[in-house]
């Protein structure tokens, strides 16, 4: 008597093992390096690109043979999508790398605390102190205008706004975020040209140009934060007899303060690096200008641009100033993220 064993289940679809992509990836990268040895020798970019193409081809073909067309397409899509992401990281990494590499040559305490008075030709001294002060002035003026305006507009949109006016403001604020920075510069220039006259130059003009760019960013982020505040909090406050304006100040704004801070800092980080409007409006100077309402003033982005255009020893100063600018922007972003992570109320994230 023979025991009949059940038939071995037939696998109609064969799949590659889960770890299959790893050896294929290693092999493609090695192969890419090998191909490059035939030419001028391997470079990082070459290995990355050729390796990625080889990986895509090998993986898709193998999958087509073993798994069939549908899975081959799936694997190809996965490869392409991942490749797109890695490709986007290249500019970020390379940009940070070259700014740090070329920036540290001249970056020092002395660079941050001296200005360009008496610097000419190929002199390697001089620094960006005047430009840092100018950037603080211009961004400060923009913030003084844009932050209250933006916060109050957001309050209007969330707490008071009804009907066509509110809808119109929402749409136009959105559209305003797309105003080219150079147009904002032209606007500030013509504004002062018409009102004050052609000879007037000061940090104020640049500040107004940046305020035009900054206000919509503040409105958008603050509005988003205010909408996150639960309605129950407002109703509880009204039920206790607290007037509406006090409710907004003491309950709504208090609850959303971390998010508002984050939004405002990111808005500052966005405008602090604006170059084109400042190029048109405030120009450049070689010494510190302590008066925000009179005279040309240097700012970091314009300083970078002008110094780089001069070339030679000035180009090193441009890179050091670019590094300064990146450090400021990254710090603002980092602090903004930390504020929103550690100070936002529970459950609102």
């Amino acid at each position: 008597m023979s025991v009949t064993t059940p038939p071995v289940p037939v696998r109609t679809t064969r799949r590659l093992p889960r770890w299959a992509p790893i050896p294929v990836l290693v092999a493609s990268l090695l192969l890419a390096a090998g191909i490059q040895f035939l030419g001028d020798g391997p470079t990082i970019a070459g290995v990355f690109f050729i390796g990625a193409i080889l990986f895509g081809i090998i993986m898709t073909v193998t999958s087509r043979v073993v798994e069939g067309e549908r899975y081959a397409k799936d694997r190809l899509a996965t490869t392409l999508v991942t490749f797109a992401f890695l490709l986007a990281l290249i500019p970020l990494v390379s940009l940070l790398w070259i700014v740090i590499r070329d920036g540290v040559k001249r970056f020092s305490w002395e660079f941050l605390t001296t200005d360009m008075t008496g610097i000419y030709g190929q002199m390697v001294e001089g620094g960006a102190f005047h430009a840092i002060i100018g950037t603080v002035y211009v961004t400060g003026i923009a913030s003084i205008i844009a932050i209250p305006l933006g916060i109050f507009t957001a309050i209007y949109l969330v707490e008071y706004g009804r009907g066509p006016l509110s809808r119109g403001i929402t749409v136009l604020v959105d559209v305003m975020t797309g105003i080219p920075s150079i147009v904002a510069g032209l606007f500030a220039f013509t504004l002062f040209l018409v009102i004050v006259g052609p000879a007037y130059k000061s940090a104020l003009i640049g500040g107004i140009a940046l305020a035009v760019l900054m206000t919509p960013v503040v409105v958008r982020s603050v509005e988003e934060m205010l909408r996150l505040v639960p309605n129950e909090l407002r109703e509880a406050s009204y039920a206790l007899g607290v007037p509406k304006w006090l409710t907004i100040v003491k309950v709504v704004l208090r609850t959303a303060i971390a998010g508002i801070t984050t939004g405002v800092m990111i808005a500052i980080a966005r405008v602090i690096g604006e170059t084109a409007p400042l190029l048109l409006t405030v120009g450049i100077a070689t010494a510190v200008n302590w008066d925000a309402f009179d005279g040309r003033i240097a700012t970091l982005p314009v300083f970078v641009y002008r110094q780089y255009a001069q070339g030679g020893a000035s180009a090193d100063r441009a890179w050091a100033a670019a590094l300064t600018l990146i450090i400021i922007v990254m710090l603002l972003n980092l602090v903004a993220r930390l504020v929103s992570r550690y100070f936002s109320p529970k459950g609102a994230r």
Partner: protein
Amino acid sequence: MAVTDSPPSEPEAPPKVRAGRAPGRLGNRVFQGISTASGIFILVILAAVAIFLLVRAWPAVTAAPSAFEDVGFMLGRDLWSWVWPLLFGTAISSVIALVVAVPLSIGIGLFISHYAPRRLAQGLGYLIDLLAAIPSVIFGLWGIQWLQPLVSPLFTWLSTNPATAWLEENVGPTIFSGYQAPARNILTAGLVLAIMVLPIITATVREVFLQTPRLHEEASLALGATRWEMIRQAVLPFGRSGVISATMLGLGRALGETMAVLMVLSPGYLINFFLLQPGQHQSIAANIASHFPEASGIGVDALIASGLILFVMTFGVNLVARWIIARRAEFSGAN
């Protein structure tokens, strides 16, 4: 205590109970006034931008063509034949930027929303957002210092490969003809622009993909679809209008971007499609930035007129983009 923010349906209380004024009434009025005024002030600013530009551009628009003969940077042309090449340069650099950035952004958006491990996704999205925070002047430096040498061999190959050579001999010059190093041409400028608009498009596309109804995705997977088939069936159809409006937002940014084009591109005032030749194209924004400091008289007005054209263009593009987003929010049913 009286309720200060009384709903309209509240019955009128007898006067004896409501003795005195409701507390905070003045505060309410003032606060509401300030808020509303701020909102209206934003509209005023936007109108002022248009009006002031128009006021200063008007002399240039109405001037006789001969008025521009003394303006050095206009090369003796009248206003419209001067603006057309600039418009063309603006458009072509933006189109190159979008052709590169949109597929890449869709890929990145999908990667962050559907491929990356859940725990990493937010951090990876933040990395892409960092690109948006980098000042444009630094993108310009990077374009000259890093991208230009990198793409130069590629451009040489594009310009001299057998297919291009054959076409040149038998058909005529192609868009890749006549590459000259260094790569200060419109294609390089377009590539830098592409990287600058990438985070803007990605941010919108990613949000839309993340909003895909979970049930659509699971229904697709339950029918045996692979991940890619699920994305084709559920995610991409849902996100189509989002992708379109994100593209428009990216276009708005690319049209007005100044510094990258100004620093990378070697300018010219021609209308042609020679993407690899320097000295052929220039964008409106970069043109304003490079000539504004030296301009005077009617030259300033002409530059402001070109700025007004740029403003109207970007305004229109952004308005359409927002309209698509708003329409989608009304009809999608997912929000």
